[in-house]
């Protein structure tokens, strides 16, 4: 088996650093019940890049993206997102930063069931301070980009298929033009074909020169969509690789990853 350890971490050249983590640690609980979820994570993500975080359950992937997204405080190390360190920011500043710069896609979609698809997508804009009506209009534009027709715009999430719900979630993550999008298992609730479509959509719409994507996944079927894949084990990054892609030319140092 080829080694996944590589130092320094390979990353696409000439792009701005979006996320820079060095020695990040996080422990849950205290005393005998303490569990160290992150044991000194080093990771760099650049703009224009889709990085996948893979690894077994409980290895710390979700904890790491929670720290990067600013929804969880780290215990040690440094972590900056677009040169902002949450540790130096107040709770309110962190919340505002998330609202401005970060988009979320969740495994369970987390769409509010009592709102329509358009209203769900408009939420980040309203949170940023936009009035509801123009926000809904912008949301409708974004939903059209992810393939929604007029009829589906006013549908509530429970009346949509899993793939459609995830497309709404992607539209919601993109509508306010964030610089970093974090996705937690975005395809795990979807069938293979729908998962591929969702990832194609992500690459097509989300990737931009000023934006980075971090995708936590177990789903080996979507590895080909990553620019780099970081493998985690026991709270550490154990390797970062560039996968072979069907649609993109693989870089010279790419090594196939074990799913």
């Amino acid at each position, binding site marked *: 088996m080829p080694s996944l350890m590589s130092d320094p971490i390979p990353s696409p050249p000439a792009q701005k650093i979006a996320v820079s983590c060095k020695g990040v640690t996080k422990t849950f609980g205290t005393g005998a019940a303490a569990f160290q979820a992150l044991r000194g994570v080093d990771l760099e993500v650049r703009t224009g890049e889709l990085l996948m975080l893979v690894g077994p359950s409980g290895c710390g992937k979700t904890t790491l993206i929670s720290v990067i997204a600013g929804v969880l405080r780290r215990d040690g190390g440094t972590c900056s997102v677009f040169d902002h360190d949450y540790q130096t920011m107040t709770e309110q500043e962190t919340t505002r930063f998330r609202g401005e710069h970060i988009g979320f896609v969740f495994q369970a979609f*987390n769409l509010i069931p009592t709102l329509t698809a358009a209203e769900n997508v408009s939420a980040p804009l309203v949170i940023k301070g936009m009035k509801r009506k123009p926000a809904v209009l912008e949301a409708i534009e974004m939903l059209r980009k992810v393939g929604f027709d007029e009829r589906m715009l006013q549908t509530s999430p429970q009346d949509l298929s899993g793939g459609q719900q995830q497309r709404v979630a992607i539209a919601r993550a993109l509508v306010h033009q964030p610089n970093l999008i974090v996705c937690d298992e975005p395809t795990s609730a979807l069938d293979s074909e729908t998962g591929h479509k969702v990832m194609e959509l992500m690459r097509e719409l989300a990737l931009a020169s000023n934006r980075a994507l971090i995708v936590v996944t177990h789903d080996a079927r979507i590895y080909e969509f990553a620019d780099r894949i970081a493998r985690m084990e026991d709270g550490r990054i154990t390797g970062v690789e560039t996968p072979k892609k069907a649609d993109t030319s693989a870089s010279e140092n790419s090594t196939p990853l074990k799913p």
Partner: protein
Amino acid sequence: MYYYALKMLIGDRAKYIGIIIGLTFASLLITQQSAIFVGIMSRTFSFLTDVGLPDIWVVDPQVQYIDDIKPLRDTEVTHIRGVTGVAWAVPLYKGSLPARLDNGTFQTCITIGLDDETLIGGPPHMISGKLSDLRRNDGVIVDDVGAKGKLARQGPNGTRIPLKVGDTLELNDHRVFVVGICKITETFQANPVIYTTYSRATLFAPQQRKLLSFVIAKAAAGEDPEVVCNRIRQVTGLMAYTPARFKKLTFIYYLKYTGMPINFLTAVALGFIVGITISGQTFYNFTLDNLRYFGTLKAMGTTNSTLLKMILLQALIVGAIGYGLGVGLASGWGALLSGRTQIAFLLPWQLLLITAVAVLFICLSAAALSIRKVMKLEPAVVFRS
């Protein structure tokens, strides 16, 4: 975000309706029971309300409330007339006398004897006849509720024929003629009320050494009735009250010496407990069910203060709807029955305010639990599937 907060609330139909039903029931029970209590309590001093002209009531010092009659000597009237600051003073009789009905049964009637000359203390509204008709031989005026109800005659088909002007009645073995029908504030005892002159009432009443129930008086122009009351107390040794003080004395007596307050308070407390239990629990469950979405909103950049306002808005909206429905139902119930039955229902604005405060307290208590949960919510919860 407030629009979304409302859609989250209304969208969960079962809980939304459950919360509103709880608050409506609480509001209904609190308003209705309080209104009945206030209605009953207001009837305890209805006689004082109806006798509007005098501003001083003189009674025996041992009297504890309006119906606690301890007769005075007739000479007290002239004694009081002599007190400085008294414009006029007249006697007033109040007692219970049996009236014999057509079917041979007896009905106790509250009999009011008015000063023969002035007829001061008479009923506030006449439906038929005139107050001055009391001067006719053996004339009495009967209240309309009594005339239609307990004093009504039995018709051929079992129907009740109300007493009317010209009918006769046997009051404590004395034949009297109905010369008028009046409308009065309903009484606590719910017995028919019969007005006649003082001399006639004391003639009909069982013989006692003293028969004068009250001396009602008016303070002279420019005189403070309270000051005149004090003067009457000092000069005569009797108790003198302004109507407001006498009402308060009566009200306090019923509060202290009857089980009414505790009974009604229990019902009101039940409404409050039911409201806080059903609505509070359902509202908290609603928040728990939506915790993932609150977490999502928090992760997406919604501040704690906005989430707090969203929950408060949800609580206040269900509170306002529940309050409106509850008070509306209570008022409708009161309005429906007040015209048809003798139910005591009085809904002053203060009661509406008290119910509003109670419902607001229920809503805020329910919201407080939810707010605490949402404020402490780690936004990282959104990544847990």
